[in-house]
């Protein structure tokens, strides 16, 4: 192990994993942008569906879990890093639930058919979800990598001491 790498690893003993933590927080920001954009679809009675209710609850849960995970990965807790990867996968999966359903749906009011979600809005909400997912994946991957590096380094220190 060269000196630079050793110092970089040693530094991790005293510094937080801010990159992962900040990425996790950024994923929350993109998620907020997502639900602000998606709830603009209020054409007819489609808006008041069970799907929307579940979506609201999930958004709240996602923000809570992402925030807790950001604190976890900040302290190199590998479990939280895996959890962020799962949250990222969840964000991708969501594209095929609410936005896709809304995009495919239409409502007829006074014999005129309207699409629930315009293409422009659909693209926007998918973009927010993708960015949120990318942040979660980034935070998770970096978190797993750094946590492993740190635990290996700490184990080597313990070995030296022993």
């Amino acid at each position: 192990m060269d000196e630079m790498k050793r110092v970089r690893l040693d530094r991790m003993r005293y510094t937080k994993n801010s990159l992962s933590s900040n990425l996790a927080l950024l994923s929350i920001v993109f998620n907020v942008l997502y639900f602000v954009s998606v709830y603009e679809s209020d054409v007819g009675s489609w808006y008041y569906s069970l799907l929307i209710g579940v979506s609201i609850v999930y958004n709240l849960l996602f923000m809570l879990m992402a925030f807790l995970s950001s604190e976890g990965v900040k302290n190199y807790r590998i479990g939280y890093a895996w959890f962020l990867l799962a949250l990222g996968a969840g964000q991708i999966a969501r594209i095929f639930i609410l936005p896709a359903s809304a995009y495919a749906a239409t409502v007829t009011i006074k014999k005129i058919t309207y699409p629930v979600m315009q293409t422009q809005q659909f693209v926007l909400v998918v973009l927010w979800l993708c960015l949120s997912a990318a942040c979660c994946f980034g935070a998770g991957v970096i978190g797993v990598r750094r946590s492993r590096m740190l635990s290996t380094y700490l184990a080597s220190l313990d070995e030296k001491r022993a």
Partner: protein
Amino acid sequence: MANISLQHLDKIYDNHVQAVYDFNLEVKDGEFIVLVGPSGCGKSTTLRMVAGLEDISGGRLLLDGEDITAAPAKDRDMAMVFQNYALYGHMTVYENMAFSLTLRKEDPNVIHKKVLAAAEILGLTDQLNKKPKQLSGGQRQRVAMGRAIVRSPKVFLFDEPLSNLDAKLRGATRREILLLHKRLNATMLYVTHDQTEALTLADRIVCMSMGHVQQIGTPLELYDTPSNLFVASFIGLPPMNFFTVKVEGACLACAGFSLALDEKEKALLAPYRGKEIVLGVRPENMAEGGDVCVRVFSNENLGMNTLVHGHIMADNGDKMPITCKLRGWYDFKAGDTVKVAFLKKHFFDQKTTNAIRAKGE
């Protein structure tokens, strides 16, 4: 490190109160200077002027020959340690120590090495992940010192860094500062009102009162040859005893006692014959078995020494308070009379309060 030159420094506040008058001092590279004096004497103001935290009203400040009188604090390459530590509560010890270097955008690996080196010097390696609130007062002060060390400044400034610590910690931290100075051989300016700190730490002491420098010298010079009554009374614990006496030819006389003068003292006090002067005697410069009768008021046994508080009874019934530090263990009772001898005397002009010294001393 650095030489500092303080030339005719004055500090006048906006409300026209003058805190420092004509302060002159040459600090040599690696020297440990302690500014000492009672509260409000201008010592902290002087230090803050050096740090750049107070504007200099008059005079010049030079660092290694370069005029930094008007330079902002950030450009002076000095690090200051405050009495209240000034640590960031939400940061760990490591982050607190690294903070100033992070602001300078130094390489994180270099910062890491510097922080670890400083922590090693100060014995903080095991505390690096802790927050300040988890540390004792002494440890927090060491963190504050560590934050100064990592910057590798030209000059270290300490503003009463031990005042918030209890007596035991103060002693331990004082020794650490002394070791730190020896290890870094850095130029240090240290402000305190505690004469013990001043005497134990300083290469040279600057004694101040009411904004004026009273004396600059080594700790021994200030203790042994104080330049005036203020320095004589301020340096030394218990403080020096003072008596107004009249110079009468071969002796000093007052209402309570009469002391014979030796040839040297006679020559020194010849200009004061027939006049009143102030006689100063340190409690530790007394011994049992002399001509001065002391009526004991209280007796404190300190182990090696006994501190006797009492009065010299004047002929006219007045009482002159006196404190004697006698070598050995004595059990005097209140009201007992003990005879003491003055082993070393200091003489002061009553009008000017300056020490009376032979020419060339």
